[in-house]
């Protein structure tokens, strides 16, 4: 059970984005993958839900190999996974309520009344009660993220994938989103995988943090272990210290060149 990525490699043309990334997310925990922008965090997340297929390596969810799933099996998997997009990816021709109910419309046994009730529950859960009639363009950035979260949780998924859930938000709204992520774990028992470059947020929501660096998992540990880590790249990233972060990277490149 859980999400397991093993030795995942992915290239786009000449660019190697993932170079053998391994991670296991166990049931009930919230794991965070941290790393700088452009390091391949979102690419990684898209592998879990089958939007991308790895060049090599394996991606399994509840023991099922995601890249091999097709048709109904893939649909069943996607109903177990909610995906919160970086910029919410709300359908702008639909109201917020229609967006939230979108995933339910295709599920057997869901009539209009049941969908409306569930939509209202989900909007209340993300503190957007009464905003179902608005269009995405009428919402603030934080409200859009919360609407995206409501849409993701509407089909009651076992897993929630969060792609940069706090990017571009002010500190207060960031704290609101973080609190919601914790509520998803604690109240709904959802297993979470958060990719972010916001270390404050990662420390707040994650049971375990993995640093993605140069396409690989460089460090995995609890928030306390991450804070205490001596690894210069990790410390450079956590402290926002470019000299430490890039210095360590440069030193390693020079080592490789010498060898």
């Amino acid at each position, binding site marked *: 059970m859980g999400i397991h990525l093993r030795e995942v490699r992915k290239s786009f043309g000449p660019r190697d984005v993932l170079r053998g990334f391994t991670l296991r997310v166990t049931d009930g925990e919230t794991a965070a993958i941290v790393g700088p922008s452009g390091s391949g965090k979102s690419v990684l997340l*898209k592998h879990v*839900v*089958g*939007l991308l297929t790895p060049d090599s390596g394996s991606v399994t969810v509840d023991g099922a190999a995601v890249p091999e799933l097709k048709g109904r099996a893939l*649909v069943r998997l*996607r*109903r177990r*996974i*909610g*995906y919160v*997009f*970086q*910029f919410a*990816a*709300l*359908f*702008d021709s639909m109201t917020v309520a229609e967006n939230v109910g*979108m*995933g339910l419309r*295709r599920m057997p046994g869901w009539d209009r009344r049941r969908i409306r009730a569930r939509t209202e529950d989900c909007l209340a859960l993300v503190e957007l009660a009464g905003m179902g009639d608005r269009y995405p363009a009428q919402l603030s950035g934080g409200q859009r993220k919360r609407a995206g979260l409501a*849409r*993701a949780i509407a*089909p009651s998924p076992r897993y929630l994938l969060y792609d940069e859930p706090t990017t571009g938000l002010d500190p207060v709204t960031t704290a609101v989103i973080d609190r919601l992520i914790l509520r998803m774990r604690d109240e709904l028992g959802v297993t979470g995988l958060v990719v972010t470059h916001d270390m404050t947020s990662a420390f707040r929501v994650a049971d375990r943090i993995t640093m993605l660096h140069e396409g690989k998992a460089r460090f995995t540990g609890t928030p306390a272990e991450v804070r205490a880590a001596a690894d210069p790249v990790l410390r450079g990233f956590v402290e926002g210290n470019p000299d430490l972060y890039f210095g360590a990277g440069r030193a390693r490149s020079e080592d490789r060149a010498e060898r």
Partner: protein
Amino acid sequence: MIESVLRPFSTLGVRFLALLEELGRAATLFAAAFRSLRNAGVWFPNLLPEMARIGVASVPIALFIATFTGIVMSLQASYTLTGAIPVYFVGTLVGKTMILELGPVLTALTLAGRVGANISAELGTMRVTEQVDALETLAYDPLAYLVVPRILAAVLMFPIVVLLAMTIGIASGWVTALQLLDMSSPEFVKGLRLFFDPWDVWFAVIKSVSFGAIVTGVGCYCGLRTEGGAEGVGRSATRTVVVASMLILCLDAFWAAVLL
């Protein structure tokens, strides 16, 4: 030296391979869209709204163009036929050209701009803002949801819009002949009926079905292949209009060679 001589051939080869690759990708997309026809539960609810958007909303612009085409055709026919040829041939010329060529082709070229660019920009925006990915994560088949209803709507609605445009074009030519060319209605109708063949109307319908598929197919393909932000969306829309217009003219020649 040899390198500089070979460079143009190499560039040509690279472009040809890129074209083949593009054709392969398009064929794969349309084959997948064809398979998505079985997901009727996904595409059917979107079919009527798309028919209204692609077909009904296109009627005013199609009729506007047909009206003025009919007027110009009538005046130019009269100008060309002055003297040697009986004036009732104005009706023949207006009828034949509106049905066989100008009705379907001008309407299709106009809709390549109106409908094709619109579809491309809409799907392109959905692609770059991850709305297409969002559809997939919500267990929707994006081809069944986005592509199939648009192509089906165009295939069903283009012939209707073209038939309306042909009718209005002939009617405006007729009115022009009466008001500006001193022709009588019996004269115009005599010319109109002279070489009329019902097959011509079927020919126009067949052409417009294929034009509908081309305009929406190219729009969907370019839209879903959009990369980058607003610039990419703009590029896709332009590309759709150019490619769809070229394909419309190629298909027009093809149908003329095959069916006439």
